[in-house]
């Protein structure tokens, strides 16, 4: 019953298509502009590179999207990637067995996510405070664990996960496509997914209609941690090394991708596909800055401006009051 009450009316679906249509248009325009501005853009190598970079960002942003859909926020994803990657890298170096690393990264990622979920859903700490506290806890643990050292040199088979190709497509891009489909089906086509939207749109109504709000919130934060663990694995395989500050600069772009993708910070509005388009947009901007040889120091500034602009457009076009 709950699913039918809260599923979006048809006109909302078409307006969602319009929202995403505009973003796809922006992606297309950006591609045209970049291929005019730089000869290096429209090469196969660069496009594969853009997609591969986008995949890393997408893993973080996908779990984060679920959290934002519940009107929450997970600021700990970057720090979570740092800890997961460092522990997984050390484990792999010690045992030489990629399977243990996969278990370590996903396990730590999901466990941290679950802790966030408990803090938010059970102890009812505002999500940005709980995950911000968690950010610094993880940050401290990672630096203490690594003690300034770097682990590097992982088995060749594992590095395929970041650099390999399957049928001409980079493997992380395939993983991204698979997780996009799975998570889009989960949010759009299952009762649990619909409940996530309902909790974000109106938590009181969701509780009164008998939804297990706490359990769904914990699930959402755990999934966010799990996708951070996945991102950590791709990161490890790409860089072939891990050090303590690995995830520090990743949170801001991930939040930006979610917000550019049209997911509302106020909960209940947004799609995984939108986040995918947002990821592409942001990656294209950063890639374009690289190709045009703009100093990478300007990247946080540009990302910051994009975040504010995206939310401003969201507020203006939806007429939503804060």
């Amino acid at each position, binding site marked *: 019953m709950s699913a039918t009450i809260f599923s979006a009316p048809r006109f909302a679906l078409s307006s969602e298509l319009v929202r995403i249509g505009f973003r796809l248009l922006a992606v297309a325009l950006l591609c045209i502009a970049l291929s005019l501005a730089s000869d290096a853009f429209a090469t196969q190598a660069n496009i594969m590179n853009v997609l591969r970079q986008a995949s890393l960002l997408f893993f973080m942003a996908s779990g984060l999207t679920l959290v934002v859909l519940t009107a929450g926020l997970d600021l700990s994803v970057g720090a979570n990637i740092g800890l997961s990657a460092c522990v997984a890298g050390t484990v792999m170096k010690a045992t030489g067995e990629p399977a243990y690393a996969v278990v370590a990264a996903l396990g730590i990622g999901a466990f941290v996510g679950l802790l966030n979920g408990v803090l938010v859903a059970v102890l009812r700490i505002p999500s*940005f405070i709980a995950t911000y*506290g968690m950010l610094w806890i993880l940050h401290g643990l990672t630096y*203490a664990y690594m003690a300034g050292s770097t682990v590097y040199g992982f088995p060749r088979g594992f590095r395929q996960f970041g650099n390999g190709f399957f049928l001409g497509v980079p493997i992380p891009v395939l993983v991204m496509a698979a997780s996009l489909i799975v998570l889009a089906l989960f949010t759009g086509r299952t009762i649990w997914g619909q409940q996530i939207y309902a909790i974000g749109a109106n938590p009181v109504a969701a509780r009164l209609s008998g939804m297990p709000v706490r359990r769904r919130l914990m699930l959402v934060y755990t999934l966010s941690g799990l996708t951070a663990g996945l991102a950590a694995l791709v990161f490890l395989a790409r860089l072939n090394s891990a050090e303590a500050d690995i995830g520090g600069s990743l949170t801001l772009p991930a*939040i930006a991708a979610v917000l550019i993708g049209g997911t509302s910070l106020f909960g209940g509005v947004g799609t995984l596909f939108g986040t995918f388009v947002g990821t592409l947009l942001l990656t294209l901007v950063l890639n374009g800055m690289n190709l045009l040889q703009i100093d990478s*120091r300007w990247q*946080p*500034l540009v990302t*910051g401006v994009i975040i504010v602009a995206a939310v401003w457009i969201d*507020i203006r076009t939806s007429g939503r009051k804060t």
Partner: protein
Amino acid sequence: MLDQILPTRHPLLVRIPGVVVMLAVLSIGFAWASPGFLSWPNLSNVLAQSSVLLLIALPMTLVIMTEGLDLSIGAVLSLASVSLALVAVTTGSLLLALLVGVAIGAACGAVNGWLVAWLRIPPFVATLGMFGVAQGLALAVSDGQSITGIPTSVQAMYSGTLAGIPVPILLMLAATLAMHALLYATPFGTYVFALGGNREALAFAGISQRRVLLCVYTLAGAMGGLAGLLLTARLNSGHPSAGIGMEFDAIAAVAVGGTTFERGNGWLPGTVLGVITIGVLRNGLNLIAVPSSLQVCCIGILVILAFVFEAFTGERTGAQV
């Protein structure tokens, strides 16, 4: 909902604010673990080291009382620090450095206030955007390098003494008194309370919410600039990432001090105690040789504990789930 699940608060716990309990427990613990902790030089050191944090935690209390948040303050502090360091190195003038630092901080804060009040962007997002902008500018201004060769007139802001009392402690006292007077003895303070507690009342009284918000964020930025001067004097250099993470310590101090993040229930003396609690925690952990990475970890735990403690004493309700 939570009230039905949790036991009713103990009468004693109601009277004693959580931050006092925490400060007492930490102080007793560290005094027991390390004999040097209670010496006067060490305690004065704790206070002096807390001065930078206090300067940004005081206005952060006001920002949080308006149901806002300023995540940009650490990056703004860094930007002010490198800019004023450049000015100080080239001109050698303390006054110019102070003016530049405060002006840059106030400008960043004013942009935050404009984004929040006029464009109605959630404070968290607006200041996160400003975090990126200020961080990028700080890197660009300093070319990613430390700026050294700070003149002695600037250094004296941290290491000097006036009538036998260290300058940073005097600054702390002055800032606390000024902010206390502003919040509890002026109409502006009443508006700040109303912004968090009762915005309709403010509208009926004919007060512009936007202007009050603008003032609060600008004040936070300006104090960030002043804190930048103090930090530059303390580190004897300007560094583009010197203030990164200080926004967390400031938010932690406010949270530990008992200000609620909803409905604007602010308590300024609590913030001062919160700053001292964090100073004591860092100092004590240093004395028993805990690495700084784990100190950060402990502050994260302290914040979460503060929220849990308040939930159990019923003073704070937390997020409406």
